[in-house]
């Protein structure tokens, strides 16, 4: 068995455990505060985090480079970032209630990665061989991880506004928490966009060319800037903020799936 297949196996395991967690977190949601089921689900989530990290390391070793050189690897890395962000925050804060909103997108993304985006690992095409790939893409992955958390929180917020889900924390807490997540993610995303511009200048001689991929990075950035503004603009805090969080995330997803696959531009990965 080669490293590639071993890596795939860990991804399959992760999907399997996440599916189990889907059930556990759903049950936990109907229960009173802290309970055994939640604890089991959290432990399993740690296992998923571990498996995904192992899967990535194996991919990295197989290809002898950072494991985000094509869309498949980028998707796996992003899910790993989401899961790890969730887990590390959960050490300090009681956010188990978020579990289901991490699990659902994680399953969807991993599923898409395995079914649609899968490519065997291999070396990079020359255009991607650059330290900038490492810097630019890893910062994008980290901020995507955190923005995913904000997305989950925004949905919870809206659900809670519309009917009173008992087991969830207060609206105010959800709102503050989702704001903090953006406070963390936005500067990193800004850095990612800037490093992308520096790289583009290095590779193509222009730092900004309104390539579709760049345009959607810009749109994403603007939406989250609007989100930050909404926090200090009367009449925008709360529900509208939450909708902006969802819009920002929609832009990220659109950029990743639609622009990468259907629109031709300069940014193209090896193998889809």
């Amino acid at each position, binding site marked *: 068995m080669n490293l590639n297949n071993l890596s795939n196996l860990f991804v399959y395991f992760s999907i399997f455990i996440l599916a189990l967690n889907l059930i556990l977190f759903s049950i936990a949601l109907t229960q009173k505060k802290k309970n055994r089921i939640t604890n089991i689900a959290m432990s399993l989530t740690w296992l998923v985090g571990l498996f995904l990290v192992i899967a990535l390391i194996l991919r990295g070793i197989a290809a002898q480079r950072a494991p985000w050189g094509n869309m498949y690897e980028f998707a796996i890395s992003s899910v790993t970032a989401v899961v790890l962000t969730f887990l590390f925050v959960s050490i300090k804060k009681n956010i188990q209630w978020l579990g289901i909103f991490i699990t659902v997108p994680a399953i969807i993304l991993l599923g898409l990665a395995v079914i649609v985006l899968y490519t065997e690992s*291999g070396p990079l095409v020359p255009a991607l061989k650059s330290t900038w790939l490492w810097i630019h893409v890893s910062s994008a992955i980290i901020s995507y991880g955190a923005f995913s958390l904000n997305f989950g929180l925004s949905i919870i917020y809206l659900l809670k506004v519309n009917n009173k889900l008992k087991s969830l924390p207060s609206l105010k807490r959800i709102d503050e928490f989702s704001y903090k997540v953006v406070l963390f993610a936005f*500067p990193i995303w800004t850095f990612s966009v800037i490093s992308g511009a520096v790289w583009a200048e290095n590779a193509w*001689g222009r730092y900004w060319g*309104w390539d579709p991929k760049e345009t959607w990075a810009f*749109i994403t950035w603007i939406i989250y800037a609007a989100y930050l503004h909404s926090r200090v603009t009367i009449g925008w805090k709360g529900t509208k903020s939450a909708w902006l969080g969802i819009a920002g995330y929609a832009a990220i997803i659109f950029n990743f799936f639609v622009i990468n696959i259907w629109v031709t531009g300069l940014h193209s990965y090896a193998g889809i």
Partner: protein
Amino acid sequence: MTTKQISAKQRTETVLPPLNFLGFIRWMWRQLTSMNTALLLLLFVALAAIPGSILPQKTASLIRVNNWKTENPNLANLFESLSFFDVYGSVWFSAIYILLMISIIGCVIPRLKVYFENWRQKPTKTPSVITKFSNYQKVKINKFSLKKIEEIAIRKGWRTFLNNNSLTIEKGFSREAGNLLFHFSLIIITVALAFGALFSYRGTVVVKENTGFSNTITQYDDFRAGRFFSEIQLPNFFFTLNDFVVDFERSEIQRGAPRKFEANITLNGDENINLYVNKPINISGTKIFLTGHGYAPVITVKDKNNQIIFSDAVVFLPQDGNFSSTGVVKIPDTNPQLGIEARFLPTAIVDPVTGPTSTFPALDNPEIFMSLWQGDLGVNSGISQSIYKLDTSKMTQIGLEELKPGQTWNADSGFVISFDEVKQFASFQIAYEPGRFLALVGAILAMVGMIFGLGVQRRKIFIKMPTKSSSSNVIEIAGIAKENHNLEKDILKLLNDLGFNKTKKVSREI
């Protein structure tokens, strides 16, 4: 100690220090209205950027725009009149963008003024009653005078305001400074972009092995420049392409993907340089990039008198990942004129269904499939023609042949066509982007400003001595901050510096 519950009134006080009630209301009102506008403008910009990412743009590829128009004749005119094929240079996009910039300037300047006024002013007086704060507490510390406490606080980076028997200390001014710096940097970046749009130039050129390029507009295949560009901006240089090396993946995984390509050039006749993707060379601000490559088969044509009427390496444009390439030869000097339309396959196989195709990008089994045409090339019609396309509408086909390197074809009308060898060509992008340094400075300043603007919170702590005493080992303390700031930690830190010890806690009133 809980800092969670602070009334709305106190909270607004921390964000907006009121000078007087009316002034405060007016300032607040202005702030609110313009913040609302700013937010809407941001959303408009995001929306306005969308069509340009979905429709083909002239700035990227004129050919794709024209293809789209022929495919969608109903929408072509409407979209053209809305500048949908040049969104980012359009009047309406610029208008929203400029409005946003005006809004920033209108926002930054008054805030800058307020900021400096605040800076010169001491923090506000301590409220007369601080027991109503939820984080109010009375604690026992070492015996200090308020004056001494003030000194300690100053050493710890607090701004202070000392009253008779009370002290207000304040931190987090860099939040507003960072925020202002951030918004100001956005203006810098915009100026840089505008500057680039006016003075920049970029061109592409295809160079075959053993041929050269010298930097004048006429030598470019495609050249674009900003409105204020003038030709004297072009630095003087020339280079020849000596050798182009390319390597493709041969194993099953990602078979055919390029693994390395590099161009060996001689710059200005004496300097030998290897040029790689992503590693441009810089000539007084102008950068030369290696962007692509392909094959240039050498084709020789002789007429019936055995006279050479054409002999050159011909650039064939790659059409797919396996470098199936197409190219044309035009010979306008014969009568009637002669043209060759050809397909070049570096690793040719003849598929029973789809016909000849290339299965690998390297030169494993190179073959050329030619068709020879005679008639009117249309080159004298005055309409500019692509050198990569043969207009066969006024020509007739007089032969078809497939050749390997070294083979010769005795074609119709006494023409002898030979495929001598295969050379390579490299394509280069040559670009000058004058705003780039300023843009980078703006981007870095924006980053720094943002880190302070988002990371720092403004907060105040009030300290009082028990009635009338100016020095005591019991103080009353309370503070306010935004809800997402951990004020408890600040208070505890300060108290520790004052010799506070949890066990000495006197009481928690309320």
